[in-house]
């Protein structure tokens, strides 16, 4: 299994480096332009209060608190942009695990060896977990580096860490259903499309539910409802139920995907 883990990690290296550098650069840019925001004299709190509450919630802005670096980072980056960037990493990674192997035929190389389907899938899942932690570390590095030469960037590390922890769980949940799509499909493109579209549908559902009270219950079936980025950036603690929902989605879909992959026919065309 270690050999397979190393192989998957090697295969993912280029993608990880690319996404890692991208996220690091984005973090650096965000941190670098923050002082100009805070010194501009604009009363951002007042400005933001003019926007509809639902819109602010959708972008993860908590209106009851003061505008800080952490809430700015949440609003401008972590609560939506980061998720969108990482969503593509997740969708492509999950598609590669099974569906891509079936569509390009390389899965036969593995299945003809004395290694179980379970180990093939698990080693990929392990690399994903390591990969997403690396991406989070790159993101955090981008917030930390500017502080070395500019102490005006006041970072509430506790709030940032909480946000990143919930983002990690959120990413795992997205990965869970993406992996499930990969395990039932033989087409890489379909998996990427299904993963990204379903995540975007969740986002839109959450957005609509915030506007229309009649369909407010919608929010409970979207993952975005359980990611309270705005609250986390103000220093509020992680709600255990939210974390459990993400963990539950990850576990249920991953186990379902593993079960289906064990049973399915692998018909390389």
């Amino acid at each position, binding site marked *: 299994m270690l050999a397979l883990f190393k192989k998957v990690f090697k295969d993912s290296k280029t993608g990880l480096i690319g996404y890692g550098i991208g996220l690091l650069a984005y973090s650096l840019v965000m941190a670098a332009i923050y002082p100009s925001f805070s010194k501009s004299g604009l009363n951002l709190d007042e400005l933001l209060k003019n926007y509809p509450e639902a819109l602010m919630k959708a972008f993860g802005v908590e209106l009851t608190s003061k505008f800080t670096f952490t809430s700015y980072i949440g609003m401008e980056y972590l609560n939506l942009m980061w998720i969108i960037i990482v969503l593509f990493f997740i969708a492509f990674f999950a598609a590669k695990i099974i569906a891509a192997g079936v569509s390009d035929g390389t899965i036969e190389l593995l299945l003809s060896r004395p290694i179980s389907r379970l180990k093939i899938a698990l080693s990929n899942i392990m690399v994903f977990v390591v990969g997403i932690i690396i991406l989070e570390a790159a993101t955090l590095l981008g917030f930390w580096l500017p502080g070395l030469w500019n102490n005006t960037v006041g970072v509430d590390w506790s709030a940032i860490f909480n946000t990143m922890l919930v983002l990690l769980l959120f990413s795992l949940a997205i990965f869970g259903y993406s992996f499930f799509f990969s395990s039932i499909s033989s087409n890489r493109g379909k998996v990427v499309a299904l993963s990204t579209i379903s995540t975007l549908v969740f986002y839109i559902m959450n957005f609509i539910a915030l506007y229309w009270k009649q369909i407010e219950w919608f929010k409970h079936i979207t993952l975005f409802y359980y990611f309270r980025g705005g609250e986390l950036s103000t220093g509020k603690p992680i709600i255990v139920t939210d974390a459990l929902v993400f963990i539950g989605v990850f576990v249920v879909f991953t186990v379902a995907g593993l079960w289906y992959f064990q049973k399915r026919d692998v018909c*390389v065309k």
Partner: protein
Amino acid sequence: MIIKTENLTKTFGPIRAVDNLSLEVKEGEVFGFLGPNGAGKTTTIRLLLDFIRPDSGHASIFGLDCQKQGLEIKKDIGYLAGDVRLYDEYSGEYLTKFLASLNGGFHKEWVNELTRRFEIDMSRKVSDLSKGNKQKIGVLQALANKPKLLILDEPTSGLDPLMQIEFYKLMKELKKQGTTIFMSSHVLSEVEKVCDRVGILKKGKLIALKNIEELQREKARVVNIYFKENYNPDDFKLEGVDIQEADKDHIHLILRGEIDPLIKAMTKYHLRDVSFVEPDLEEVFLKYYEQK
């Protein structure tokens, strides 16, 4: 028995790809699995390797259940896919190293020998290789663990004639060493060269199971015998022999079946020349396909 299938059946929607297939392959045997494209050869191989699961029936290798004990079986199997797919971004060397780690190691000298015999450039990326060179790496990775059973799906597709000769030579060497070989093919001359026994598959059903000698005996051979003396054409009215033309010093006949009685009939006379025109197995193969 190395391979045993009992009433193995697999359907894909309305298509019955493998239909109640029962066959046995003995230890040390080279078994040819014949049939045109779509006959069910690859599906059978995938069932044996547990890539796909049967609707009904049972398959075992080394006496172990292909579905339940697949991992144990795969320790001693070498598999070459019909259309070899390798990791494009890997070199032959890295790929071999990786696959060795999954198999618990390859025999280094043996890998070097295969590399030399098939003239494989192990340093080049798979994506830079031609189809034939990819096939060579496929052959290498199938043989590298010195398996007890080799499962080969159309093994020589893409290999140039020289490499095909090397491949057949290698198959004969492995057979001598006791390796069991199960190979599918639609190239009958290939099967004739290396196989002991063949199974002919049509629309998923096994329509014939024969020794290669039996199959060869069924071939219609055109025989021309030239005599130095007068002969009696009645001596050649034998079972399985059709006399086409009988001249004063020459007889033209078609032989279907045992050659021994004909040879005995010929030895009664002084001969000037004899010629046998050997059609390939294609004719026999077509005969089966037309009949059943």
